[in-house]
């Protein structure tokens, strides 16, 4: 176990090293700190002196080591636009993104488990087929499009006038298909509760929760089909296994078999896959935050790109890289702990 731990952690450190090299290359290749610091009127000699003072004439390796050393101490430079340390800017924006992810994960967990289990227990049922059909279509719809459709329906509202309004059924259909809208589709609202540090939460006020609904549903919509399919496939496999047959022969109730015995073994691969999906989730938060102008790190990153705020771009890459590496390593370790068949130290087959 210790060897496995060492192997995984050293692998994580290697990946983090590569990420930091890439980030350093971006910073070095894209930004000229001098141009940001001094105006046009500064003479060539002064520029050269400043260059020397800042260490820009040192070799690449020395410059990288200085960059990495500062990064380890939590100093990733100052944002050009905000004029404060980049990590401070990120920590101000991170809670909004985290709340988005938490809300979406809650929706995914609450819906995917019952639907996946149901579709596995009754694969031939009409409702199960309907859910699977919807999830196939769902995978083909990009997250920003779902978000736009949700805004149109629940925020702006739609008025349907396709059916003749002078007949009773026409009026009823028009009314049934029209929506009022009114849900907020912009930002987080002003009624945020201060939890600690830079964390202002929208979970504790009505306006905050209302603002969370559409972004969370959009973000959940892209992962939900995937999880439903995964849970269904895993559950169907587990239901074929001998111990389930034995439990059935023993006369245990269907509820006990399905939810106590089968579900437990279904969830193991689901949890590990879920952990890996964090990476995908972060990419989708950028899209979701753009649509809803959600003030999280994704929107901040995009704005940093349009403003050519290189230090902020680099800091974002480092932070997101760290999040990926930590979650992936944790998932690997947990999987190694829970599933004894994983080869702990051996080479990959």
């Amino acid at each position, binding site marked *: 176990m210790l060897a496995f731990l060492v192997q995984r952690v050293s692998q994580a450190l290697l990946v983090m090293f590569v990420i930091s090299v890439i980030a350093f290359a971006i910073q070095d290749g894209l930004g000229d700190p001098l141009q940001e610091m001094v105006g046009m009127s500064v003479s060539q000699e002064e520029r050269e002196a400043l260059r020397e003072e800042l260490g820009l004439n040192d070799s690449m390796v020395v410059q990288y080591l200085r960059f990495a050393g500062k990064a380890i101490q939590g100093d990733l430079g100052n944002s050009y636009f905000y004029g404060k340390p980049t990590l401070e800017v990120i920590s101000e924006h991170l809670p909004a993104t985290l709340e988005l992810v938490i809300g979406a994960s809650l929706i995914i967990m609450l819906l995917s488990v019952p639907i996946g289990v149901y579709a596995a227990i009754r694969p031939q049922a009409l409702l199960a087929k309907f859910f699977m059909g919807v999830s196939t279509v769902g995978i083909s719809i990009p*997250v920003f499009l779902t978000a736009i459709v949700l805004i149109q329906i629940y925020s702006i509202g739609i008025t349907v006038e396709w059916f003749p309004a002078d007949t009773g059924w026409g009026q009823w259909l028009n009314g049934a298909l029209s929506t009022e809208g009114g849900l907020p589709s912009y930002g987080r609202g002003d009624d945020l509760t201060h939890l600690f540090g830079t964390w202002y939460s929208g979970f504790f006020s009505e306006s905050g929760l209302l603002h969370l609904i559409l972004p969370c549903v959009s973000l959940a919509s892209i992962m939900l089909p995937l999880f439903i399919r995964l849970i269904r496939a895993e559950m169907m496999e587990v239901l074929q296994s001998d111990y389930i047959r034995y439990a059935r022969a023993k006369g245990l109730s269907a509820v006990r078999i399905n939810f106590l015995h089968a579900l437990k073994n279904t969830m193991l691969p689901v949890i590990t896959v879920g952990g890996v999906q964090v990476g*995908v989730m972060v990419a989708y938060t950028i899209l979701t935050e*753009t649509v809803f102008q959600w003030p999280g790190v994704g929107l901040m990153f995009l704005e940093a*790109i349009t403003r050519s705020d290189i230090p902020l771009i680099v800091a974002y890459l480092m932070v997101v890289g760290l999040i990926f590496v930590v979650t992936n390593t944790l998932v690997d370790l947990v999987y190694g702990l829970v599933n004894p068949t994983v080869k702990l130290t051996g080479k990959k087959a």
Partner: protein
Amino acid sequence: MTTATLSRWNRFRESFLWYSFRRDKVAIVSFLVLILMVLAAVFAPLFAPTDPYDLAQIDIMNSELPPVGMQGADSAFPLGTDAQGRDMLSTILYGTRVSLLIGFGAVVLQAALGILFGLLAGYLGGRVDSILMRIADVQLSFSTLMVAIIVGAVFKASFGNLMFGEIAIYMLIFIIGIAEWPQIARTVRASVLAEKKKEYVDAAKVMGFRTNRIMFRHILPNTLSPIFVIATVQIANAIISEAALSFLGLGMPETQPSLGSLIKSGFDYIQSGSWWITLIPGLVLVVLVLVINLLGDWLRDVMNPRLYKG
């Protein structure tokens, strides 16, 4: 040997592929829809009422007209107009063309990279294998979209807006190709590992053929069917990635829109009630991706060697 005397066309008509295609209604419908969309996109200059790239044909007075069937519509613009007065039908036809071109180009690039790296990793094994697959693992754990966004962001920041806009098509093909090669490389590697153990490879080795020849002339043809299946699905993924990048402003410029940038430019006007500018291209995008995915599902079922051995 009756099969040898049959013409290529007749051999195709007798094949399992054609047989199962005729029996699958979903596949037939998806195929017809896809062919229709591809033809409409390829021959867009013939079908489109106006040329959206030609500024002389655009009249700003025609902006934000709704599609036919709604109040205030103009029958000259069946799907309405966008905020600049461009005919939606024409922009969508041209946009589908750009999206398909990028999707197809990106898959050709990632297939080339994926096949090369997959063959090398699978056949050579050892250190080459572990390095290539470790890179693939790391890239996949970051998710292809995230890699594409980061690469796109770096390119955009280094080339500047104007320059990026001019070469956006090639940039996007490159970005998406680079971001998604691991998917194909993994599939190729897996089939190479299975093929490598077969006798014909040993025979080729004994005959003294060079490694390159064995890899590309002997093993590669036998790994083509899974590549074909995954490449189909990857076209759909590439089109979605392109749309996502364009939506974020890291893709096609508004003057030469793809479906994604049409959705993006329409989104600014959704609050004013002009839903058609964003939702009609969105619907086209979803239909396009859906039929490709359905065809991919069908191909996978047909070509899966576990279900059909032939």
